[in-house]
């Protein structure tokens, strides 16, 4: 046997010390699930545009009292039905001129408006500033939508979890109830509720939420069915966790993507219902404005004063489109396999 020569320590050297470290280094920071979702969401241009638009709209309606140029309910009958005017800029359609008997007439001069008064989006039939009404109307519509969605969550999520978790007989009975509630067209239930309750914000929220929770409950139930077969749930059960704790600690965090996505689809729905109810005259009572009442007022005068309809119609459509697209974006971000 050959003796291993006694090599002094100093002769040993790491081969490619620096290079090795370089190779083994993790180049990109490892991302948590949420960070990954955010990255995917922000790489989706459409979703980012929608998110920005919605944020602007939400911010404006949050700070409505600061942003709105006039009091939305202040009436000035002499200055009624004035067309939009953008200061002294002479942009066709926004210069305060109106077609009267074939001639373009300065409606502001005709109404005897003091010099320097102008309304960005014109005034309505009672001389109320349309822009301020739209800002406040959007605010009210968004409040209705957010509240209705919250009630949806509060009823739908626990209902779905209980139904899916318990299974068996409880589930059958709970699903029957869901089936019955969902078999009446929601709009009819909403209308019936609106007839019974006093008109107002609370009634609209209740009326919308009373049928709205069903979809959420169904989705949550289906998801809970899958989740409850997971090993970590089994582990929690084996360790003797109570059902409530499993639901809050294990189920809800794993259901959060479903909840967020569904919420993004509930919001436009609630906005639609509010607008619909106000449009047919059983929604938000006067003098408060919501997008629905503004649309309905605008529709009455649409033939002669189309600007009164355009502005609320555009805002309503933008909100609806943006929430729908953002919902799509979120779904793709949370579950990249869902679409192509």
């Amino acid at each position, binding site marked *: 046997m050959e003796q291993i020569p006694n090599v002094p320590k100093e002769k040993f050297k790491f081969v490619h010390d620096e290079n090795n470290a370089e190779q083994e280094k993790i180049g990109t920071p490892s991302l948590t699930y949420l960070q990954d979702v955010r990255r995917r969401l922000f790489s989706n241009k459409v979703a980012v545009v929608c998110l920005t638009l919605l944020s602007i709209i939400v911010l404006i309606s949050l700070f409505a009292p600061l942003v709105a140029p006039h009091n939305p309910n202040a009436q000035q009958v002499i200055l009624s039905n004035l067309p939009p005017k953008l200061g002294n800029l002479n942009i066709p359609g926004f210069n305060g001129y109106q077609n009267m008997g074939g001639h373009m007439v300065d409606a502001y001069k005709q109404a005897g408006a003091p010099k320097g008064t102008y309304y960005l989006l014109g005034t309505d039939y009672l001389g109320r500033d349309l822009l301020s009404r739209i800002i406040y109307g959007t605010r009210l519509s968004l409040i209705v939508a957010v509240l209705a969605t919250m009630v949806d969550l509060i009823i739908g999520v626990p209902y779905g979890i209980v139904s899916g978790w318990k299974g068996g007989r409880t589930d059958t009975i709970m699903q029957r109830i869901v089936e019955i509630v969902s078999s009446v*067209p929601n709009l009819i239930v909403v209308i019936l509720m609106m007839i019974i309750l006093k008109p107002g914000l609370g009634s609209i929220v209740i009326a919308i939420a009373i049928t709205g929770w069903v979809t959420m409950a169904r989705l949550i139930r289906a998801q809970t069915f899958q989740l409850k077969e997971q090993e970590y749930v089994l582990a929690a059960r084996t360790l003797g966790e109570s059902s409530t704790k499993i639901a809050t600690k294990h189920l809800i965090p794993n259901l959060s993507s479903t909840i967020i996505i569904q919420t993004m689809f509930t919001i436009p729905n609630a906005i639609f219902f509010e607008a619909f109810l106000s449009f047919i005259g059983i929604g938000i009572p006067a003098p408060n404005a919501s997008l629905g009442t503004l649309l309905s007022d605008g529709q009455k005068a649409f*033939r002669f004063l189309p600007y009164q309809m355009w502005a609320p*119609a555009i805002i309503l459509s933008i909100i609806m489109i943006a929430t729908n697209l953002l919902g799509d974006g979120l779904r793709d971000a949370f579950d990249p396999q869902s679409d192509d």
Partner: protein
Amino acid sequence: MTKYILKRIFYLFLTLFIIATLTFFLMKLLPGTPFSNQNRMSPDQLKIVKAQYGLDQSVFVQYVRYMGGLLQGNLGTSFQFNNEPVTALIGQRLAPSMQIGAQAMVVGTVLGILLGAVAAIRKNTWVDTLATFISILGLSIPSFVLAVLLQFYLAYKWHIYPVALWDNFQSSVLPTLALAALPLGNVARFMRTEMVDVMSSDYIELAKSKGNSAWKVVTKHALRNSLIPVVTIIGPMAVSVMTGSMVVENIFSIPGIGEQFVKSITTNDYPTIMGLTIFYSFLLVVIILIVDILYGFIDPRIRLGNGGKE
């Protein structure tokens, strides 16, 4: 299969019974009476009128009477609208609503299928983007907004169609278009997702590799298989068209049941509201049942294995 259908029909009646009961008691909770406008009536006259409609009896007797009448297909008599039976009111007004609804469903579904299919075949091109954009617009813009815009431009400004009239086919075009947008958007989206799935499946690869033309692959294999799931969303779509028709009928002054419903709400006409609610629900449950059963027949892979539901 027969057992399943019978079971579903039993539940259908149970659902309708519950809906009818709920509607009845909800209506009893309503504030005001339908006669509160006629303030010239003396208390005696009011009594006679109430007795005529059976409103002097206890709520329970009224309920039993109402349910008894319901079994015989009697939805009660309208308080307003010349004391006509509600069934007669529905009968007179059913045709326009059905016509518009059916036209909207057909136009929406057919265009939606085409749009979705084109988007899927030309996936990730500008055609796809445009189709997706159109379907999002259709899904997002409320039908009443669309109805008013159509009325303003196509009827009032350009005189292509009548503004608000109900006589011939011409007058049904605008309401149909306004209502068709939602099913169009829905179907197109659904169709695109399905078709993208199908186009990447093995049997499409096989069909292509056998040398079939692209046209044949699409029409013979892809389209057919993507169409099956689309059947499932017909039910919910019919509902949205029905509800949309309420306000669209109002905008275009069409003498349909939707317009009637809105009118009966503003006049506190309980029997009509109740009758129409039950009628709408009946239509809805029947449509959903038919769709579910049809689905089982169309797609042999499903055959209602787990009750046809998730």
